[in-house]
């Protein structure tokens, strides 16, 4: 008899069989396809247990950091304590800051009841008292006083307009997370970095950027912030100050409509701007955040332009709360 827990519940587990066999027999969670640590259908998060190397073969470091492993390669007797990849804890938080930082963008500062153990670039699922929940990326570092979000108003939206209402100040919300793997991994300090995002896609990029700088990243860093028109960009002064303080950082503002005020802006789509500045993305680490459709199309385009799949990190803002997904390499 082995020992296996899934989502906190004990599951019958035999010596010599895989955790996937046991979960399938109990009709719980993941179904396997290849049973050889290849297809990714049975990826789980290991909370406790000795994970053999084979169960993580070929997974990107960011997946391993999250505890991911192939359930088909976790062989009994265990013990193993497994949860779904997207499973995470919850905590209460109070809205202590609401500050308008751009047209239809508000900075939300949250005080959490316990320190939130997150990595810059991750996101939380925020739940209001009435049960409505949406995902928001974290723009701050763990050392900052508040967990900061940048929320854009979606007209008529169920949750986002609420943050533009002074009544939200002081309210209590629930956070689930942190989630997501679009983070800076230390270790290759001379690599070129490209960070590109539209609208509030800047929020996770700002966290990732500050994290890279705090780790002493030495390679060139190019941040591209895009919007339809110049009114859609925000934090221009803050980003400018960061660029002046760090020689290796260049900030590019990209807009589709000819700018009337700021002549330093480029009238180019994000993808065109990034590719106009370099002949290949081979060897460059790329971070893409913001609108889901844009992020997915840029990801494919930048992969074709030579970026390695392992060096293409993204955080697509899908419209509905995101289910746990397979994100292999």
């Amino acid at each position, binding site marked *: 008899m082995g020992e296996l827990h899934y989502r906190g519940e004990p599951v019958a587990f035999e010596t010599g069989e895989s955790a996937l066999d046991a979960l399938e027999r109990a009709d719980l969670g993941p179904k396997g396809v290849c049973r*050889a640590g290849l*297809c990714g259908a049975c990826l789980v998060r290991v909370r406790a247990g000795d994970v053999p190397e084979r169960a993580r073969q*070929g997974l990107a470091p960011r997946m391993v950091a999250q505890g991911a492993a192939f359930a088909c390669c976790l062989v009994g007797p265990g013990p193993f304590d497994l949860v779904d990849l997207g499973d995470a804890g919850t905590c209460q938080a109070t809205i202590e800051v609401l500050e308008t930082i751009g047209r239809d963008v508000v900075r939300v500062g949250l005080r959490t009841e316990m320190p939130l153990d997150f990595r810059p670039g991750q996101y939380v699922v925020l739940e209001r008292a009435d049960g409505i929940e949406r995902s928001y990326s974290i723009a701050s570092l763990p050392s900052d006083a508040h967990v900061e979000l940048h929320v854009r108003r979606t007209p008529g939206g169920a949750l986002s307009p609420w943050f533009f209402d002074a009544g939200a100040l002081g309210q209590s919300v629930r956070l689930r997370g942190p989630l997501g793997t679009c983070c800076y991994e230390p270790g290759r300090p001379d690599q070129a970095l490209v960070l590109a995002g539209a609208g509030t896609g800047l929020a996770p990029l700002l966290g990732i950027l500050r994290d890279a700088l705090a780790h002493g990243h030495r390679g060139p860093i190019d941040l591209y912030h895009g919007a339809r028109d110049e009114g859609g960009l925000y934090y221009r002064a803050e980003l400018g100050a960061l660029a002046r303080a760090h020689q290796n950082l260049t900030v590019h503002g990209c807009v589709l409509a000819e700018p009337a005020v700021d002549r330093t802006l480029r009238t180019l789509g994000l993808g065109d701007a990034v590719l106009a500045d370099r002949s290949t993305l081979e060897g460059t680490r790329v971070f893409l955040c913001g609108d889901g459709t844009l992020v997915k199309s840029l990801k494919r385009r930048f992969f074709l332009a030579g970026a390695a*799949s392992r060096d293409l990190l993204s955080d697509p803002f899908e419209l509905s709360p995101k289910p746990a997904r*397979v994100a292999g*390499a």
Partner: protein
Amino acid sequence: MTDLYQRLGGAPAVDAAVDRFYRRMLADERVAHFFDDTDMDGQIQKQKAFLTMAFGGPHNYSGRDMRSAHAPLLAKGLDDSHVDIVVAHLGGTLKELGVDDSTIGEVAAIAESVRNDVLSR
């Protein structure tokens, strides 16, 4: 079979080949549309499964698994010509990586052996 996998270099060889192979697929408009509207990270994982299988490596896919994995593509018009293209890109990828022609032939033969399952025949 696993002898071929060892000669090719095992899992690290799959990792070395997967981006090159998948980039070829996405850049070829004759097959790229089969990979539309799919999450790229998940696709890379599936391509690794494909390469491991073609390299004669360890896997437990059955013919039925291959049929069900590719059934949605049949509805989009998958036929022999696409299998030929996949086999050609597989060979091209291995050539770029310096693999000799007779070994490429062995890999192509494994891919060929799955043709009827992939096409649900």
